[in-house]
């Protein structure tokens, strides 16, 4: 179905009893994994609405990523595709692996499609929080980052450590592989983005996103960090989201912002919400038509859509809770946010199906 961002609508709300921290759709599109302040990851089945708790972490999980076969992305041509409100999901997903990193520094491996997943591998990956997890395009390598100021690479197959990338001087908030698989970016509290050449393990350049960082001299503390990060599928653009213009770090008074980098030249462009919303951007992604979508929150939540050519966003959706994370459905027509109110809200970005006439 065609994306019509102006038609964005709530498709389903998936309730959990505790505030959520992160969320990710699995590659088949059937499941939505949401991490919670109760240290669990909840797997919502979008077709059956079944809810399964993944128990194994002893702290909050912010980073989640998948290792899967490349053919799982649902498409209209897949005969086993089920459709709910226009959202496609594979009825019988191929087995995939979920990797999740927690705030005690542990990286856990799960068989994501099992009836009651248990962690089958635990790696003490970082000293302190793991803030993000990413998987390389060829599915061979896992990247993690955290408060120990390190970026680490692991074998996706067996969890072996492959490399430690040093150089950040503050907490590393996010990590993402370039679609080419040859480069990795990592982004820290102070808005420094390192571009690593994976063949050498060396940084080849830095991108400046310091607009996200401030040392609040009123409270004597740093606020910042790239809270969400994504490449477009062609690898020509890198989008980062966070908070800027902070006037009071301890009350969260500032504005969400997306910094869009031209990857080849490293030039940034600032994309702002047009409604002067106060809060933090927590997730960003690219739609297939090039639209950039971000989500975040303060007192309540927002989803913003930008045409990359415009500085101000073109459409805004109000969300009834602080959106702490955002994930894009693999069919490209829906997204979900992890709500501070304990609910995952799934939004379709398509025209609602016409009501079936009563017979």
């Amino acid at each position: 179905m065609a994306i019509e961002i102006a038609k964005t609508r709530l498709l389903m709300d998936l309730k959990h009893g505790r505030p959520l921290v992160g969320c990710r759709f699995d590659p088949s599109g059937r499941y939505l994994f949401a991490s919670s302040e109760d240290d669990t990851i909840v797997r919502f089945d979008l077709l059956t609405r079944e809810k399964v708790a993944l128990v194994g972490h002893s702290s909050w999980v912010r980073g989640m990523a998948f290792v899967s076969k490349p053919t799982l992305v649902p498409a209209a041509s897949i005969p086993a595709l089920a459709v709910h409100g226009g959202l496609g999901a594979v009825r019988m997903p191929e087995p995939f692996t979920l990797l999740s990193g927690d705030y005690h520094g542990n990286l856990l491996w799960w068989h994501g499609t099992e009836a009651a997943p248990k962690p089958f591998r635990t790696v003490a990956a970082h000293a302190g929080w793991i803030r993000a997890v990413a998987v390389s395009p060829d599915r061979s390598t896992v990247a993690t980052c955290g408060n120990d100021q390190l970026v680490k690479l692991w074998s996706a197959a067996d969890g072996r450590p492959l490399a430690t990338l040093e150089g950040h001087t503050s907490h590393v908030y996010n990590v993402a592989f370039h679609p080419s698989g040859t480069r990795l970016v990592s982004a820290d509290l102070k808005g420094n983005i390192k571009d690593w050449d994976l063949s050498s393990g060396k940084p080849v350049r830095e991108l400046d996103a310091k607009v996200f960082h401030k040392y609040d001299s009123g409270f004597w503390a740093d606020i910042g960090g790239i809270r969400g990060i994504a490449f477009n599928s062609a690898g020509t653009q890198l989008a980062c989201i966070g908070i800027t213009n902070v006037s009071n770090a301890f009350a969260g008074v500032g504005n969400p912002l997306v910094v869009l980098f031209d990857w080849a030249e490293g030039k940034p462009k600032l994309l702002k919400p047009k409604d002067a919303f106060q809060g933090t951007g927590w997730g960003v992604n690219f739609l297939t038509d090039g639209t950039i979508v971000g989500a975040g929150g303060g007192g309540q939540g927002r989803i913003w859509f930008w045409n990359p050519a415009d500085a101000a966003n073109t459409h805004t959706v109000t969300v009834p809770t602080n959106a702490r994370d955002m994930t894009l459905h693999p069919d490209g027509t829906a997204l979900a946010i992890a709500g501070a109110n304990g609910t995952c809200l799934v939004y379709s970005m398509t025209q609602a199906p016409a009501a079936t006439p009563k017979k």
Partner: protein
Amino acid sequence: MNNCNYACGTADHTVNRRLFLGGAAAGLAGFAGMTTPAAARELKSAQKRMLVIFLSGGVSQLETWDPKPNTDTGGPFRAIPTSVPGIHISELLPEAAKRMHLLTLVRGINTKEDEHGRGATIMLTGRRTEPGLVYPHVGAVAAKLLTDKDAELPGHIQITPRGGGGFNKEDAAFLGPKFASVTLGDGKPPADLLRPAAITTDAEREAFRKKLNDRFAKSRRSAQTEAYTESYEQAAKVVSRADAFDASREDPKAADRYGRHDFGRHMLLARRLLEQGVTFVKVSHTNYDTHHENFDFHIEQLGEFDRPFAMLLDDLKERGLLESTLVVVMSEFGRTPRINDRYGRDHWSKAWSVAMAGCGLKAGAVVGKTNANGTAVTDREVNGGHLFHTYFRALGMDPTKNFYPAGRPVPIADPKAAAIHEILS
């Protein structure tokens, strides 16, 4: 977010040495009628001191002394074992955990006041704000009761994060400005402490000054002139001890141990001042008012607090000073067990904690208890009054005795409370 009653650091609060001396002189007259010589003698002989580390804004008890991991309020951090079996504190305080055998935790505090200014008043005066009567801060009381009359240095000093010094006569209340705090903003010495290079100190010039002063006093002697003379002499003592305020004279290795940052430097200065004979030192560390992203900010702030605090405990212990120095880590209040939608914690005075050490307190002990998720005190509830009594009992004083401002008896500590006897030796 509630407004914060932090020191504003404006020029209105800043006086130089001359104004400080003027205030001190006024204080001498006011102080004369309120002494309790027997009690003062009792304390002076014991040479007790007190250090308050004030974590401004309200530090989270759940991220410090009373963690509740894996509960609905616990947040993401671990509780770690300490040097005392069975006692766990937050993983954000790994160095303090290794010194738990020196510490005493009070986990059952309920001060019933969630506003910054009034919360600070309770913690610093041991009483709630009352109309018509302002009570002296703990530092002023300690200075009055513990400081030797002939002491060369002020008895009540506070080290604040921001620059700018000052003399804070209001915190001594009816005890008089002599016992008010002198602020060392950013750990810098009092303004005009050092003599300008162009002014000499030759004996002939000093003798001439004294001669003129004596001649004036003979004809116009008064309490005021006496006070000014005494204050000049007190100031001269302070000037002669200017090095006491200079933490850069400490061994650079000590500075490395404490940490090459502002709070490390301030804590090292606190140690120096206590060793030099200052009765009461308060070091403020800011800021903990984390309505937003409480966990990130506590990582940053406690990451700065933990090591200097541990180093100071070690040094006091090694130098034999911990037996006679009361150390208290306090805030205006704690923070809400409930985590808000911005990962923040708000103000919470109903169930929180203070850490203490030294001066004969039972080390490695915990008194008071909160429920499973930290929302309420379930055992040995105490308030600021109990703490105030406990401080002065530990310092060897009877806090049920009175001051007599304007002839009216005012108990040193709130008579509605009593010391936490379980932790007193």
